[in-house]
């Protein structure tokens, strides 16, 4: 990996970190959800600092160039993450629906209770 490529990895990490810090400050992300991005940025820094890691794995897995391995690895990590997000959204939607339904049912029951009292 060339020096410019390694610098781009560092800059990418700095950019992600800046994004996260600003989101935390503006209350757009909870720390629990920011952890992934902090580790992701750290991973970019580690690969930038020790390109031997990328050389080792690209040799092991038959990638022609280490940067190709880095791209593939990043895409794979993000795809897994994206799928987990889809799954979390489904679960959240389910929970939101359940809450809305219970609120509506409770309100209906309260209303009928009043009618009976009168």
């Amino acid at each position: 990996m060339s020096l410019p490529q390694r610098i781009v990895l560092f800059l990418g990490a700095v950019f992600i970190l800046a994004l996260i810090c600003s989101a935390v400050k503006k209350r757009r992300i909870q720390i629990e959800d920011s952890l992934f991005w902090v580790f992701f940025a750290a991973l970019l820094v580690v690969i930038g600092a020790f390109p031997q890691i990328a050389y080792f794995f690209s040799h092991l897995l038959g990638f022609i160039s280490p940067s190709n391995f880095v791209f593939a690895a990043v895409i794979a990590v993000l795809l897994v993450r994206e799928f987990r997000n889809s799954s979390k959204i489904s679960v959240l939607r389910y929970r939101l629906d359940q809450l809305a339904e219970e609120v509506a049912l409770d309100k209906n029951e309260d209303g009928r209770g009043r009618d009976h009292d009168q």
Partner: protein
Amino acid sequence: MKVLAIVPAYNEEESLERTMTSLQAACPQVDVLVINDGSRDATGEICDRNGYNHLDMPINCGLTAGFQAGIKYALRNGYDAAVQFDADGQHLPEYIPAMAKAMEDEDADIVIASRFLEGDRGHSLRHVGNALISGLIRLTTGVRITDPTSGMRMYRRNLFEDFARGFDIGPEPDSIAILITQDNARVMEVPAQMRDRAAGESYLKPARAIQYMARTCLNILFFQWFK
């Protein structure tokens, strides 16, 4: 048989009153529950003003959640069957007693009001979609349903739990296939007619229609075996 008509209503101020009047006139023995699904128009006020028994969903959750809330109500209040009934005036209440009778006489778990049991199928895109879903259900369950996309379906009490607890089961044709394969639900149809929409715009715009077909076909053909 104690029947609850679940009437999901999202921004149906134009047709709700008309629909409810004809429903109550035609079927005084049937209880009605309107699901005001977070409407932004006067749907909620119309319910209050006329004293319709109704649920106010605090936010718009969609048909699946609205129907699920209705089924929970039916379960908690001891109904024997629940029928989905559109607020827009497409469904004719005269068929509800016939559906209930068919459910009792034939020991059916699901009764569908079918537009195609008697008379011709049309040839519009909508009918092609209907025929495709019908074919897929027949292929995977062996059961012949002429009008799987009919929105007027009656479910017996033993299926309430599935809808009330389900993670992703709505009042849709794919659910019918799943209930047949997993619960051995007995489905039958009664011949019925439906009106064109009295007011408002159809829920199925092109993009939605494609999404609906994709979801329905994938669920029937593929995902139902993993549920």
